[in-house]
């Protein structure tokens, strides 16, 4: 059968291996916390975690002991402050987490080179900055056409990319609206792809609006149906960012004991995303729903025989 629908437990067990480079992408929008938590629950080890903005999910995964290295371009708790679990292992003489740092465009360019099977991607960034000194993989190259220097970044080819989306069909044809981030590039660049969705739909729903498909099933290995799986980040049209949680994480993550207690309660202590949502409570979940609908206009693709 061509159905790729799997449970989160099975998808992570089958597709994420110790030592892998894992990219859970999604820029503020559509961050698969559900997959991150399952990776922590299964106690994966020595992962290289790639993400433009590590966000709370990688702070939690670093605290959960799954990471060896971080590849990123902006390290913070957006709108709140720092990522304290990551700071603990990257500051001072005992820094233990390896870091490989780019700018946003550099990270996007790396996924793009990976997705296109290119040896590098050129860009007009990094001139007269200390970034190439901090990361020797960022290198100047001469244009072969004699019109100056640009910088090159190497391809990023994750072993596994995880993306969250509004909907997909059972074959993994995936549709997103709202911020697109670099999920398309990260998925095409990867060896294995897990798609996590709010809603599983029939193939006809996908085919009725093909412009909205960002990733075709041909590059997808597993489809996990996990509503609310992006909380506390958001899903356009489904739920808002839970800013209260982003703020609450700051004092929790400042204290290693509180951080571990939180992981014990909210990650190891729940078996699934459904349990997590139930534990969060109906009131909290409802408070994050959009205040009113804002449907797109309808376009007519026409029928041609």
């Amino acid at each position, binding site marked *: 059968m061509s159905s790729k629908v799997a449970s989160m437990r099975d998808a992570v067990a089958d597709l994420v291996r110790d030592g892998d480079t894992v990219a859970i992408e999604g*820029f*503020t*929008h559509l961050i698969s916390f559900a997959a991150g938590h399952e990776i922590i629950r299964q106690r994966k080890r020595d992962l290289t975690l790639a993400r*433009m*903005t590590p966000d709370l999910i990688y702070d939690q995964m670093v605290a959960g002991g799954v990471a060896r290295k971080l590849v*990123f*371009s*902006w*390290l*913070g708790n*957006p*709108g709140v402050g*720092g990522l304290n679990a*990551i*700071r603990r292992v*990257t*500051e*001072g*003489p005992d*820094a233990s987490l390896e870091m490989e*740092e*780019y*700018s*946003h*465009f550099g990270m*996007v*360019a790396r996924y*793009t080179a990976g997705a296109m099977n290119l040896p590098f991607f050129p*860009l*007009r*960034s*990094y*001139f*007269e*900055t*200390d*970034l190439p*000194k*901090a990361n020797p993989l960022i290198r100047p190259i001469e244009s072969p056409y004699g*019109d*100056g*220097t640009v910088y090159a970044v190497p391809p990023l080819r994750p072993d596994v990319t995880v993306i969250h989306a509004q909907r997909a069909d059972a074959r993994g044809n995936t549709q997103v*609206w*709202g*911020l*697109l*981030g*670099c999920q*398309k*590039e990260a998925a095409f660049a990867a060896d294995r792809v897990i798609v996590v969705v709010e809603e599983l739909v029939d193939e006809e729903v996908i085919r009725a609006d093909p412009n909205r498909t960002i990733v075709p099933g041909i590059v997808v290995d597993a489809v996990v149906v996990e509503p609310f799986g992006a909380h506390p980040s*958001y899903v*356009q049209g489904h739920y*808002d*960012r839970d*800013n209260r949680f982003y703020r609450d994480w700051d004092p929790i993550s400042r204290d290693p004991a509180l951080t571990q207690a939180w992981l014990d309660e909210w990650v190891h202590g729940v078996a699934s995303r459904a349990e997590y949502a139930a534990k969060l409570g109906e009131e909290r979940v409802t408070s994050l729903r*959009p205040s009113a609908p*804002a449907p797109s206009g309808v376009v007519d693709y026409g029928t041609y025989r």
Partner: protein
Amino acid sequence: MSEQKPVAAAEVGTGAPAAPAFSRNEMMIVAAARELAGQRVCFVGVGLPNIAVNLAKRTVSPDLELVYEAGVFGAEPARLPLSIGDPTIVTGATAVTSMLELFGYYLQRGLIDVGFLGAAQIDRFGNINTTVIGDYAHPKTRLPGSGGACEIAINARQVFVIMRQSARSFVERIDFRTSPGNLGGAENAARIRREQGWLGSGPSVVVTDLGIYHFDETGEMRLDSLHPGATLDEVRATMGWEPRVASDLATTPEPTAEELRLIREELDPEGMYTK
């Protein structure tokens, strides 16, 4: 920081309606927003730029096209975006693009008039550090890093900066150059920008909680306007070099009642940026 004393309204005459008191953070945000008058396309950075640009859109520059690195051109945020990837920047926008398109077609292509950035450290030539305090390998403080700032500083036609001023942030030598400004001086910077084909001309405005700086012909920051209640002594005490001061130093006009209402009621009712 704790030294944000509200400034009393100017006491002129009697019977005139008392202007509302305002904080130094509010003055900074208002002054930064006013600098956007007449600009067309603004790339909105993380943090303070976000509220300043959204205030400009509601006051001096209603037609301003807001560009967010998350992949939005022509945002019409109904509330202050909680982060630069908030769903409110999508609903009603002109275009949503992948980040590859946003950085490639919009920024690197040269469509951005103003890149509006925050900073942890800045030097007299407007070079910016948002990466580390201390040594890179073993930093005293790990800061967020570049995000899009490095390429914004290179490719936006000009760069505006908004940041609070302190001896730790206005430094003689930044610990790490994340985003290039006027390098070691205007002449050298202009030559390098020309030779390397940068589209941006570099920093043009820095707005702080004490005043407004522009850059003189040598590429160095010059204090052109002091906010009401701020003094030159305070300015000197909060920077790591002897500041250049305009001979016709101005006083920044106070925030209007409407500007304060927009900040307090619409944009930042919880005081995340202004407290």
